[in-house]
C-alpha cells in the first residue's frame, strides 16, 4: 500500500513539557487510521502538526513523499474536521461547504457541493445557517466542507465526542461508510477505544506523548505490547503478573476445564449489564477479578465459593 502520510520521529516541545516525543508512523492511501489515547497524550497535538497549526520541534512530516512541516495550513492538501466543527456562523451550509473551493477558484462548485451534501445526507438544507442545525447536522456540514476538497488526508479531531451518546453509534457507521465510498485517507483522533476499534483499519495508541503500539484492532486488543495498551483497550484482570480479559475469564461452581489455570475465589457481586453479566470475585490473595458471563448461564450470589479459571492461550504476554 503506498504511504500517503509519514511521520518521522516527530516531537513537539513546549516550555513546560514535551507534548509529543518521537512519534513515527505511516498511513497508507485509503486507510482509516486512528490515534487513540487519554486526554493529554499528545494525539491532538500530533494531528495539529499534520494540519499545520503547530510546528514540530524536530522530525519530518511527509505527504506523498514530500516534506510539508514548513508549509502553512493552506498550502497543504490536508483538511481538518474540528471537534466543535468550527462552522462559519455567518454563512449558510452551502457557503460553508464551498468555502475552500471558492478560495481555490475551482470549477463546477455547485455540482461538487451538491454531490458531497448528498453523500452526507444533507440535501435540502443548503440555505440553512449553522445555528438552525442540530449537532449531528453540523457535524455533517463540517465533514462535507472538508471532503469536497478531496484532500490527501482527512484529519478528524474527536468528531463524535460532541454528539449525544445515542447518536454516536449511528454517526460512526455513517462515517465508516463515507470513508469506504470516497476512498479518502482518514486520520482519526479519539479517546474512545470502542470508536477506534470499530472504525479503524489500523490504529496507534499514545500515552504521555509517545506512540506505544501501532497495528490492527485485533493485534492491539489480543496482543498488546504494554500494560497501558492492554488496559486502555478494554478491561484486564491482572493475576500474578499475567493479564486475562474478562470475556476469557470464567467462573464456575464446578471444577475448571482441563488444561486451564484455576484459582479459588468468593463472589463479591454480580452486576447485570443488560447483554451480559459481570461477576466480581475476590481471590484468596485478595485481588478482585471480573468475569464476563452470559446472562443466560449460571447465576451467582454474594459470598458463593467459585473457581476462577482461564485458558493459557488467552493470557496477554508482553515481550
Amino acid at each position: 500500500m503506498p504511504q500517503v502520510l509519514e511521520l518521522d520521529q516527530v516531537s513537539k516541545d513546549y516550555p513546560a513539557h514535551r507534548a509529543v516525543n518521537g512519534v513515527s508512523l505511516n498511513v497508507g492511501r485509503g486507510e482509516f487510521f486512528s490515534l487513540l489515547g487519554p486526554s493529554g497524550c499528545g494525539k491532538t497535538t500530533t494531528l495539529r502538526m499534520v494540519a499545520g497549526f503547530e510546528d514540530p520541534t524536530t522530525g519530518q512530516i511527509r505527504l506523498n513523499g514530500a516534506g510539508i512541516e514548513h508549509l502553512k495550513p493552506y498550502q497543504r492538501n490536508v483538511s481538518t474536521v474540528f471537534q466543535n466543527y468550527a462552522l462559519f456562523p455567518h454563512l449558510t451550509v452551502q457557503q460553508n461547504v464551498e468555502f475552500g473551493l471558492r478560495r481555490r477558484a475551482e470549477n463546477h462548485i455547485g455540482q461538487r457541493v451538491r454531490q458531497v451534501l448528498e453523500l452526507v445526507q444533507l440535501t435540502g438544507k443548503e440555505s440553512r445557517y449553522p445555528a438552525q442545525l442540530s449537532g449531528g447536522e453540523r457535524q455533517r456540514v463540517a465533514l462535507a466542507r472538508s471532503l469536497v476538497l478531496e484532500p490527501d488526508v482527512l484529519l478528524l479531531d474527536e468528531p463524535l465526542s460532541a454528539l449525544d451518546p445515542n447518536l454516536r453509534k449511528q454517526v460512526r457507521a455513517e462515517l465508516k461508510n463515507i470513508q469506504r465510498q470516497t476512498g479518502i485517507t482518514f486520520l482519526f483522533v479519539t479517546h474512545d477505544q470502542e470508536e477506534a476499534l470499530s472504525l479503524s483499519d489500523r490504529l496507534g495508541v499514545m500515552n504521555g506523548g509517545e506512540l506505544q503500539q501501532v497495528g490492527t484492532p485485533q493485534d492491539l486488543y489480543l496482543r498488546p505490547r504494554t500494560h497501558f495498551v492492554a488496559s486502555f483497550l478494554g478491561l484486564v484482570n491482572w493475576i500474578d503478573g499475567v493479564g486475562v480479559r474478562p470475556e476469557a475469564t470464567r467462573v464456575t461452581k464446578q471444577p475448571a476445564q482441563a488444561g486451564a489455570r484455576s484459582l479459588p475465589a468468593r463472589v463479591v457481586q454480580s452486576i447485570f449489564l443488560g447483554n451480559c453479566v459481570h461477576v466480581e470475585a475476590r481471590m484468596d490473595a485478595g485481588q478482585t477479578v471480573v468475569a464476563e458471563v452470559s446472562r443466560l448461564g449460571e447465576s451467582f450470589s454474594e459470598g458463593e465459593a467459585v473457581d476462577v479459571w482461564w485458558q493459557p492461550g488467552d493470557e496477554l504476554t508482553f515481550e
Partner: protein
Amino acid sequence: MKRIGLKRAPLAIYAVLAYLFLHLPLAILSAFSFNASRFTIWQGFSLHWYRAAFQDQQLTQAAWNSLIIAVFATAVSTVIGTLCAYGFWKRSSPVLAGSLYLSLVTPEIVSGISLLAFFQWVFRFLRVHLGMHTVILAHVSFSIAYVVIVVMARLRTVDGQLEEAALDLGANEWQAFRYVTLPAILPGVIAAALLAFTVSFDDYVITSMVAGVDSETLPMVIYAIARRGVNPVVNAISALIFVAFGALILVSERLREK
C-alpha cells in the same frame, strides 16, 4: 423565583428618583428650547431659537468643522484601532495596551496641553500652524483606545478556531480575516466608529487647546456662549445634539448586542 432580600418597593421608588435625576435636566433643557421667551418663564411655544441657531453663521460653520473633523478622526481611529484590537487578539502586547489604557485615564487638560506643546515644537521645523489637521490628529490619539476596547470586546466572542478552519480550507491569513473574522466583528467595528464619532464631536477641552483660528468647533462655540450666560440658542443646539447623539448611541448599542 422567590425574591430574597430587600423589599422591591423602596428600591423601585429610589430608582425612579435616580432616573429622574439623570434625565430631567436634559428634558427640561430641551423643553425650554421651544420657549418663546429667553427668560426661564414659559411664554409659549416657538421654534425661534432653532431658526436662530441655523441662521447663525458662526454656529453653522463650527458645526460643519466639527463634522469634518469627526468624520476624518473616526475613519482613521476606527481603522487603526480595529487593526490594533485584532493584533491584540492574536497575542497581547502589555506595553501597548498599557499605554492605551494610560491615554484613557490621562486628564484631558493634560493631554491637551501636552499635544499643544508637541505641535508647537514640531512647527518650529515645519511651516505649519494649528488648524483642522492638528485637531484631527489630537482626536485620533484619544479615540483609538475607545475603538480598541469596543472591538476587543467583540473579538472575545469570536471563536479563534474559525480562522484556523479558514486557513485549513485554503484561505491565507488576509482572506481568513476578511471572509471570516471581519464579518463577525463588523457590528462591533461600526459601534466603535459611532462611539469615536460622538467622542470626537463632543470634545471641548483638548480641541480648544489645539484648534487654530480657522478651526472653531461646535463645542467651542457653545462653550463661549455658555460662558457669557444662558442663551436659549444653546438650549436648541443642546436638544438637537441630545437627539442626534442619542440616536447614534442607541444604534451603537444595538450593534454591540447583535
